[in-house]
């Protein structure tokens, strides 16, 4: 089977890329590993999504989205798993595990939108015993919203990402006692609008600068001990013991990059996803990445912008020699995407996505080209959970392989 584009993952990003790309070609295959499309949205069933202007029911939102992608007429395989990608001359040879056997698909380009997984208990280095009752927010969302079962009656959260707030919303609706949210950071890890809508509304206390110092319980969690962090050190005198049956971990996203890593693509130290150019193309020609497998998104808006672009770029893809230059940024950023720019490709209206490394008030984001400011934008507030994007027209400038692009917050 020959395809123009293979899309791995049928969540928001995969679907938007598919819809957008289908304007150019209908020879697209979308592969989803779960029984239904939706990815994270499916787990948010019954939650309220907050866009800048209004609130939307996620169930409704997903239904509309699935209808749209179904109307494009592209091929969609559910419960199918992309096992292996091989590069063969100008095409990729992809093995897909399905209920009907292993299917081989040849495709010109691939969009990876395989999402993320949350940092686990082990990756967050949480000490103590290992009983039942330690979950990630996404596991909670799956149990509650997809399966319809309650894994907790009284719980405490560690980490205040936006995902944790959706989990809280779902648990509260099921009459679960959420004792509080603890975070080892000094500031909440979620968007302000979500804090207000979901934490404050339900009167869930938020404890900042606390870390888990013990998990108590042999078979099931009985209590969690949190300790205050002062100046980066655990204060032995300020401990809180919370009696509960569950610890729900929301320590952030790790892009799911198994496939792209198996192809030895260059990976970013900052996003933990692959390094991409302005077309979201990885170091492997013809493979694009979008959504949470590219970088941790908290908001659907930025995710959609990127996913649509990637759909168009993948549809346009032609093998050419790329001429890459690096995009540098100062320590005030936790990441900037893209990290490289391809001079041989389209340089007008490039979207740069970034997160600040800490909170800032009344600062300016500046872009330098060879020490000259070519862009600046003032922000009254910048804070880490909020991803921002700026659009740069680099076509105006005479860029060469020696050009240096640098982003600063000043």
């Amino acid at each position, binding site marked *: 089977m020959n395809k123009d584009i293979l899309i791995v993952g049928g969540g928001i990003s995969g679907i938007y890329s598919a819809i957008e790309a289908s304007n150019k070609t209908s020879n697209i295959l979308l592969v989803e590993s779960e029984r239904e499309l939706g990815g994270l949205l499916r787990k948010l069933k019954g939650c309220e999504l907050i866009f800048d202007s209004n609130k939307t029911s996620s169930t409704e939102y997903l239904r509309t989205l699935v209808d749209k992608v179904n109307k494009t007429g592209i091929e969609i395989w559910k419960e199918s*798993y992309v096992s292996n990608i091989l590069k063969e001359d100008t095409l990729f040879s992809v093995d897909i595990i*399905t209920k*009907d056997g*292993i299917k081989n698909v040849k495709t010109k380009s691939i969009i990876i939108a395989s999402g993320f997984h949350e940092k686990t208990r082990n*990756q967050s280095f949480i000490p103590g*015993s*290992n009983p039942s009752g330690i979950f990630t927010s996404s596991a909670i969302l*799956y149990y509650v919203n997809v399966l319809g079962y309650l894994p907790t009656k009284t719980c405490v959260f560690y980490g205040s990402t936006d995902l944790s707030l959706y989990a809280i919303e779902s648990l509260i609706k099921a009459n679960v006692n959420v004792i509080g949210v603890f975070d080892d950071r000094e500031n909440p890890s979620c968007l302000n609008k979500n804090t207000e809508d979901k934490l404050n509304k339900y009167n869930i206390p938020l404890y900042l600068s606390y870390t888990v110092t013990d998990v108590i319980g042999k078979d099931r969690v009985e209590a969690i001990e949190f300790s205050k962090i002062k100046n980066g050190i655990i204060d032995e005198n300020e401990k809180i013991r919370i009696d509960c049956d569950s610890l729900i971990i929301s320590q952030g996203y790790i892009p799911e990059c198994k496939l792209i*890593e198996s192809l030895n693509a260059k990976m970013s130290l900052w996003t933990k996803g692959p390094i991409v150019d302005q077309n979201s193309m990885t170091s492997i020609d013809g493979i694009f990445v979008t959504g949470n497998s590219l970088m941790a998104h908290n908001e659907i808006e930025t995710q959609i912008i990127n996913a649509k672009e990637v759909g168009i770029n993948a549809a346009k893809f032609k093998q050419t020699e790329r001429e890459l230059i690096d995009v540098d940024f100062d320590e005030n950023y936790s990441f900037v995407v893209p990290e490289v720019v391809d001079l041989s490709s389209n340089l007008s209206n490039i979207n740069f996505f970034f997160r600040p490394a800490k909170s800032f008030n009344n600062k300016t984001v500046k872009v330098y080209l060879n020490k000259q400011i070519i862009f600046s934008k003032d922000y009254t507030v910048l804070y880490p959970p909020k991803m921002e994007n700026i659009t740069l027209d680099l076509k105006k400038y005479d860029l060469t392989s020696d050009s240096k692009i640098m982003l600063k917050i000043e």
Partner: protein
Amino acid sequence: MSSISKIDRIIKEINSSFEVREDNGLLFLDGKTDNYDEIVLAGREAVTSDHYGVINDIRLEGEKEIEENDEILDYSLDNLHVDCLVIGGGVIGSAILRELSKYKLNSILIDKESDIIEHQSGNSNGIIDSGLTIKSKTLKALYTVRGNKMFDKLSEELEVPFERNGHLILLKNRFEKIFYSKLFVNAKKRHIPGIKLINRKTLLSIESEAPKWANYAIYIPSGGSINPYKFTIALAENAVENGALVFLNTKCLSMDVSNNIIKSVKTNRGTIFPKVVINATGIYSDKIAEMAKDRTFTIHPVKSTNLVLDKKVSYIAEKTSFIKSPITVIRDENDTKKVGVIRGVRKLLKQERKYMYEELSTIHSTSGNVIIGPAIIETPKREDYSSDVSIISQIIEEQRKVSPKLKKSDVISYYSATRASTYEDDFVIRKGIFTENIFEACGIDYPGLTASPAIGEDIASMVINYLKEKGYKILPNKLFNPHHSSIKPIKDYPRSLRDKLIKSNPKYGIIVCKCEEISLGEIESCLSSPIPVYTLDAIKKRIGAGSGKCQGSICSPLIQDAIARKKRTSILNIKKSSNESVVLFEKIEDNKHE
């Protein structure tokens, strides 16, 4: 001065409340302290060659013993008469059970946990030791060397992933070659084949990521690595296939011993009447020996911690496992050259007491993940599975000397478990001394995994001899089949075979565990095995589902769902491991779900 008064003087120096007395060929220690180190130290100092062993009854003040759960579960085993009762389903108990199943005997194994291989064996790092560096004239050395040689055949019979790619001891300085001479003598005496001193060039051809300072290495080709879960489970399942029985959630509560014979064993599921009892209870083996009135030793738990790394950094130990020599000194701020050399030489000459990082290795495992560990530390708790984050950081810090590319962010999992060490620092493999129908396979710490097949053979032959002496006619099990088909990951099958398999059963085409690419079909076949265990942890141990990068956070709900369907029960009944380790509490009503 008699040895006993000398011991008395030494332990009184440790703590004036400590006392020693001699009885029945045993040394008893008594007293109390609030410092656990003193108890361990006194126990070590009391070891002599004139006694069976040390019974260290010094109490640790303020330490609560774990509350024993002696609740009766049911009476399903009440009045059961068997030939052999093996207590403990770790690798030792499983190896013994398999050997016993070679005879026409009515053999059963009981374990108090919800699955076999729960404690020490379940937290092994899979190293198959060559036996080269173990102290001379010990059972440990004897059984390890013998056990090592049995793995080629066993792994083939049981279809368990095993690699004999050798181990390396990295050396920095020329003078460390004396270490090699000492080991070379050991190797000759113990018939350990092929050990070689190699230069850096050869070293790099074996492990390209060897640290810069490693100028030489001792290469031990007989060292290897096995999947410890699959090995133990295959041993036990093969025993079951050959007629033995395994009962889980079955705890030994007491024994009725009279005239030096165990008459019956009381469990939480009724009283069992065995002809012989085999004690393979690891960390609890002194307690079980005590019940059998045959205790000659004391278990002092040693907690070991291992880290599992992401497969993407497998290249740091591509083929072998390696360790730095005890006299290799890598200068850093805290580690002066002098201390290192003295410590190393002392260890070399006297097999000095252990320190935390003595065994720390970079381990190539058969699953492809590199394991870093173990760090070892004495603990008063028999079941201490808690993880101390500072130890994890220290392990990484320390092992960066050997594997400089090690990063904390590459750690996907870590686990701690306690080892059953004795003060004599040796295995106890014997027939009962004070009770005639108990067989002890106790005090087995590292490298018990390697030693297990040899221990299994010997304990089984001791049992057979005893039963024969007692006038029983013991016949070989002519139907014994040594072959066991273990569940192999289908993703490793040739493409066409995998495709065929999916076409015969579409469930092999539904991937449930995305990190490890494990299908619904594999999970189901794992539940049709000779010892099916319907828990999340059991599935993880048997086929690795949920052991990958996401540690089951994505697939656990799907695996639970699959188990529930297969067992035809509600998903609410599917637990993490034990019966009390509930995952889901209730169904959410008034809500339409998929």
